[in-house]
C-alpha cells in the first residue's frame, strides 16, 4: 500500500512501498472441501488465557482484567480498564467503550499505524454487541474501557467474532457484573451453502 502521509510522531520508512507479486500458487479455498479439512459447521480450536502472567507482582497501572485469545491462526489480546471515573459526573449508568486496532503485521498486507475508519466501525460493532450484557446500571458515573489488539488476523468476520469472545473473557476476568457472557461466531455464504 502506498502511504503519502508523513507521520511526524513515528519513524517513517520510504514514502512508497508495495508488496511484491508473490508467485506461490493461490489455492482455491473450496476446491475439495475446506482448506483445513474442517466440516462446514466446525469452528477452529480455541485457546483462552486470562489474567497477568505473574500475578504476584502487579503494577498499579495494570488492567483490571485481560485475556489472550487464539482461534486457529487468529490471535487477539484484550485489556479491560475500569470501572474508573467516567466523563459525565451525572450519568445514571456506566459507559462501555471499545477500542479496536490491528497490529501493523497482523494481516497479509502491511497495515497503517493510524486508525482507519474500518477499525472504528469494528469498535462500534464490538460496543453494540457487548454493552447489553453488562450491568451498567450498577456502575453509575463510571466508565469501563476495553482495548483490543489483533496480533494475527485470519478472516475479517472471524477476527471480529474472536474479538467479541476475547472481550467477554476479559470482562469476566475483571470481575465486572454481567448478565451473561457473549459468544460470537462468523458464517459465510459460499454459493448456496452456509
Amino acid at each position, binding site marked *: 500500500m502506498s502511504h503519502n502521509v508523513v507521520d511526524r510522531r513515528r519513524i517513517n520508512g*520510504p514514502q512508497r512501498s508495495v508488496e*511484491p507479486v508473490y508467485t506461490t500458487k493461490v489455492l482455491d479455498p473450496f476446491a475439495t472441501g475446506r482448506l483445513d479439512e474442517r466440516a462446514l459447521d466446525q469452528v477452529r480450536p480455541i485457546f483462552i488465557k486470562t489474567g497477568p502472567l505473574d500475578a504476584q507482582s502487579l503494577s498499579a497501572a*495494570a488492567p483490571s482484567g485481560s485475556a489472550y485469545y487464539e482461534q486457529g491462526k487468529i490471535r487477539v489480546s484484550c485489556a479491560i480498564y475500569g470501572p474508573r471515573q467516567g466523563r459525565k459526573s451525572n450519568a445514571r449508568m456506566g459507559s462501555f467503550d471499545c477500542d479496536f486496532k490491528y497490529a501493523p503485521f497482523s494481516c497479509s498486507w502491511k497495515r497503517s499505524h493510524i486508525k482507519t475508519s474500518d477499525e472504528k466501525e469494528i469498535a462500534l460493532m464490538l460496543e453494540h454487541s457487548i454493552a447489553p450484557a453488562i450491568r451498567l446500571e450498577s456502575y453509575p458515573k463510571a466508565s469501563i474501557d476495553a482495548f483490543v489488539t489483533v496480533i494475527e488476523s485470519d478472516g475479517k468476520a472471524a477476527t471480529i467474532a474472536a474479538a467479541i469472545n476475547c472481550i467477554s473473557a476479559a470482562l469476566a476476568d475483571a470481575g465486572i457484573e454481567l448478565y451473561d457472557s457473549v459468544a460470537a461466531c462468523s458464517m459465510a455464504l459460499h454459493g448456496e451453502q452456509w
Partner: protein
Amino acid sequence: MVEAGQVTFAMQTFERIHPVEFQRRFLSHSTRHSGREFMQFRPLQIIKGAISTAQGSATVRLGNTTVVCGIKAEVCEPDVKRPTSGYLTTNVELSPMCSARFRPGAPSDEAQVASEHIHRLSAHFLDVTQLCIEEGRAVWSLSADIVCLKHDGNVLDAAVIALGAALEDLRLAGAEFDSATGMVTAGGEGTHVIMKKRLFPATFTLVGDSYVVADADDAEEQLAAASLLVVLDEDGKLANIWKRGAGAIDKDTIEQCVQVARVRMAEIA
C-alpha cells in the same frame, strides 16, 4: 501494639499512598518488593515465528512485560544516493492496552523516544545492503513493529531482544525484478538475512536516591531518578550506553553495571 493516633495500612493501600516509602522499606534491607536481588533479572522467554502473516516475528516475555515484534517486508525504490541499500524501519507501539498510563491517540513521548532509540540501534543488527534486489531499481523495505501487550517496566530491554529475535526469524522470499514491467516477483521458501551482531541489552535504574537495581518493574520505574541502558554485542564489547534522567550515577557504578550486563549476556546467550 498500635498506639493512639497511629494509623496502620494494609500493604496494598500503603503502596498506593506512600509509594516512595514503600519501596524504601524493601531497598534498605537489600531486597526488592518482588523478592528479587538488586541485580537479578526477571525470567526471559522468547518465542520465534509464531505469526504467519509477518515475514519474521518474535514474542518476548520479561516477567509480566510482554512485547511482540512483527516484521513485514515490502519492496520499494532505493534512495538515489544509496542505490544498493534497503530500509529497516522500527517503531515501538505503547498503546493504552498495555498500561493505564497511556492515552489513546498519537504516540506518547515515551513511545516516540523508545522508537527513535531502537531505530538507531537497529543499524547495529543489520547491514541493509543485503536487502538489495536490483541496484538502483528495487530493494526490500522492512517494517519492524514492536507492539507492547503488557507493560510492567523495562520495555526497552524486551523490545531490543524482540527485534533481534524477529530479525533472526525473518525469511525473505527470493525476489526478481523485471525491468520491462517494473514489477518485483517473489516466491519460494525464502532465505534468512545475515545479522551483523547479536545485541544483549540490560537496563539499570536508580531508585530511592542511591540504590541501583537491574530490570526495574513498573512500580520501581515510576520512582526512578535515572536509568542506564547498557547494550553489549556478542563479543562483550559495548555497542550502546544510554543514561536517562537527572539522577547522578558515578563511574564505578557504571563499570559495575557493565560487568553485570556481561553476566546477563551469558545468561541469555
